[in-house]
């Protein structure tokens, strides 16, 4: 499926999806509540068949926190990027997709560890890299570490 057809297909599934112009990949911003259902149809429907989540990233854009999903279909060879945003910095939560793409389990733990975005229904949401007792999430823009980081 080419990008134009894919775009129509996604907008058919989620009319609220916001298309982002001029990106390397076909990119949509998806409302958090719709993400899990959309992910399930992307994986299961035969003409989409996105069976490979090749990257899951957390981004701190100061005004909001963002989770970025890079998807690929290994049979149809088309790619798609989805973004989910949350403005709640304290308890911001996004539905997990690790029941759909198993690889998301560790990716989501990493995002939780370093960016502090929670994933609801995640089976084992612990820190991945940092120690258990670590305070804060160091890749956030507002992270303060008076011992190690010199503010310039």
């Amino acid at each position: 499926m080419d990008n134009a057809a894919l775009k129509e297909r996604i907008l058919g599934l989620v009319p609220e999806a916001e298309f982002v112009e001029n990106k390397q990949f076909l990119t949509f911003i998806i409302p958090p509540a719709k993400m899990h259902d959309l992910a399930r149809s992307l994986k299961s429907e035969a003409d989409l068949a996105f069976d490979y989540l090749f990257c899951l990233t957390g981004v701190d854009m100061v005004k909001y926190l963002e989770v970025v999903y890079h998807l690929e279909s290994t049979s149809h060879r088309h790619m798609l990027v989805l973004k989910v945003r949350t403005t709640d910095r304290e308890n911001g939560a996004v539905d997990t997709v690790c029941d759909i793409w198993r690889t998301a389990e560790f990716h989501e733990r990493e995002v939780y560890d370093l960016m502090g975005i929670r994933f609801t229904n995640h089976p084992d949401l612990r820190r991945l890299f940092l120690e258990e007792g670590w305070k804060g999430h160091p890749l956030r823009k507002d992270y303060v570490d008076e011992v190690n980081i010199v503010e310039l």
Partner: protein
Amino acid sequence: MKEADFRDNETLELFKKSGGNILMTTIDAIIDWGRSNSIWPLTFATSCCGIEMMATGASRHDFARFGIEVYRASPRQADVIVVAGTVVNKMAPVLKRLYDQMSDPKYVIAMGACAVSGGPFFYNTYHVVRGVDHVIPVDVYVPGCPPRPEALLYGVMQLQRKIRLESMSKPRQTEELK
């Protein structure tokens, strides 16, 4: 580097002042000659300096000319640990354990800006050890990002000269960090 520059080394002059009788100095000379020309490094590289260390070991620059050709995979067989790359807080205990497992006499070369001082990029963060000398005592510092193979060879030669000045009457004390 000019030959004359290499000969000029103040620490060398300082070391040479140590006393000793004729028999001891002769035995020392033989032992030091043997040891300094057979330094086995530990395979330890945490980032891009490791690639340069491999280049130094490969045929063009050829570590082996100085007798340090055999990279050991076990710290118990290694004489020198070339810390090639950034050491993060999580890696520091592992590095300390590797160093402790090496048998005496053991030497440390801090290779590259990261091992010397935390590095040009990541030093102002939550997770980087600012210089490997916070964890283990360092014999030779090789600056650069990453250092050219020639620079590492120069560092190795400095280490060899350091070893050649050792004496059995005054065995090397591995300094413990406070």
